[in-house]
């Protein structure tokens, strides 16, 4: 353990891999000192564990209906968080729902930021008419209300998880493009970019190897902070019946179906709501912590 730490903290790494791992370790040390960020990390980690081991953790099949046991309150033996109007175990549904939530988050996280990063860095690096065209396109997408655009897309393509993700990704990329472009503009005029240009590097090489690493931290922070919004939009689409289709245990959908009994059987809508709240909070805390760790201005120490 101590030798591993010494190897990671070695000021003179002997390989590329050791240098990179050493930097990661430093970041980990820094984030570990931030309690709120650690709380966020624990919540996000829990989400991962729950999603992976859902079949082991869930006490019941999330789809099995049992009309004799419908709308049982929380605390009922065998149904810790109660049952919904079809007698399905809410806890099991929330546990399985985490898979859907994670799936949506993962899909959005690999599409929207990549698209935004590409458009933002290209616009920022080349400037001129390329910048003008790309940024006006970005403006157009920004001007659409997110949920409405997502609604329109789902309405055209039909409801379903992939279409929901596509709709969210298409509305989520413009902020990343803006962040990446702003970062690129400051990086573009720096001496190290001038130096690499003077070495004869091509534009794609400069963008991919030298500009993107500088934009990545702010985009990652932004992505983490946006995840809460993505979960909420996914839930919103589910709630409106435009996302995941019943009977899949999606959290937004669960709230929607619980709405009818909100006053008499409050837990049906509240439990998945709490799950959404908790996961959103986790991502927000983590994003704030990452800002402290990854921000190039503070990492220069």
């Amino acid at each position, binding site marked *: 353990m101590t030798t591993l730490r010494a190897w990671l903290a070695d000021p003179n790494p*002997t390989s590329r891999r050791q240098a990179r791992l050493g930097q990661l370790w430093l970041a980990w040390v820094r984030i570990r000192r931030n309690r709120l960020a650690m709380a966020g990390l624990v919540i996000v980690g829990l989400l991962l564990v729950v999603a992976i081991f859902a079949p082991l953790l869930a006490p019941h099949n999330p789809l099995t209906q049992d009309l004799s046991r419908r709308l049982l309150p929380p605390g009922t033996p065998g149904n810790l968080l109660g049952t919904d109007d079809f007698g399905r175990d809410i806890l099991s549904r929330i546990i399985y729902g985490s898979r859907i939530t994670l799936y949506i988050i993962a899909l959005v996280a690999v599409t929207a930021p990549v698209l935004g990063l590409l458009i933002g860095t290209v616009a920022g690096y080349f400037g001129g008419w390329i910048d003008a065209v790309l940024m006006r396109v970005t403006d157009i997408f920004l001007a659409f209300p997110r949920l409405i655009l997502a609604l329109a897309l789902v309405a055209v393509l039909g409801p379903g998880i992939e279409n929901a993700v596509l709709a969210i990704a298409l509305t989520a990329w413009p902020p990343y493009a803006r962040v990446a472009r702003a970062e690129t503009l400051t990086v573009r005029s720096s001496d190290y970019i001038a130096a690499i240009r*003077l070495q*004869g590097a091509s534009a794609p090489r400069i963008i991919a190897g030298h500009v993107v690493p500088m934009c990545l931290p702010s985009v990652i922070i932004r992505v983490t902070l946006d995840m809460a919004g993505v979960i909420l939009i996914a839930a919103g689409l589910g709630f409106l019946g435009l996302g995941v289709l019943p009977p899949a245990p999606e959290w937004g959908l669960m709230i929607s179906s619980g709405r009818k009994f909100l006053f008499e059987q409050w837990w049906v809508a509240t439990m998945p709501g709490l799950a959404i709240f908790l996961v959103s909070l986790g991502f927000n805390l983590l994003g704030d912590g990452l800002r402290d760790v990854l921000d190039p201005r503070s990492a220069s120490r």
Partner: protein
Amino acid sequence: MSLIEIENLSVVFRAKGRDVRAVENVSLSIDAQESYGLVGESGSGKSTILRAICGMAPVSGGMIRIAGQPVPTPRGRAFSTQVQMVFQDPYASLHPRHTIDRTLAEPLAIHGLGDRDSRVVQALTDVGLPPAFRFRYPHQLSGGQRQRVAIARALMLKPKILLLDEPTSALDASVQAEVLNLLNRLRAELGLTFLMVSHDLAVIDHMCDRIMVLQHGRQVEELTRDDLAAARMTTPYARSLFDASADRMLDSPTEPAR
């Protein structure tokens, strides 16, 4: 034949609809293995001349020739094996998220040169850095060490011409001495040609054979090293620069500058 020839160079920036003439009608020629200095205060256009040579500032008039050939636009890969530059601020000229190894290996990768490991280690040794620093990040180095890395990077492609843009003005005096010594040693060993910019007349005098004094983008006077040592300048501006040089202050410690 001169290695670098600049004829009537003019650089005009367009800023907010106004034309700013950064450099006007500057001509100079530098022989191979010579060390030439450009000196002047801020706004004199001295750095702009270096940037114009590299294609980082717009040439709006005149001609730049390297080894008799007009420089191509854009400068291209062949140019980067002829001319390299060392920047003023070593804190800004190294990529903060690349290891020293990556910074030094990148030019080799761009030009498809092999044998990178041994070349990187050799480059570090040449500039007086321990090979153990190879996988450090810039923030783990001091200012002087960073500037050594920047010099090593500039020499990776074995250029004949090194453009030095105030290479020591961000460094402490003792570190400045080390870096200047390193540059002089490398010039002698590798037969390099220097075109150096500085606001410090004493530094330029120490490094260069010939000096051009610039003011407001125009050339004021060209001096040899002997002219400077004997204070044989003919223009009042060159003289005022000479008199205000920090190096001269100790010569008359009782009388403050007026």
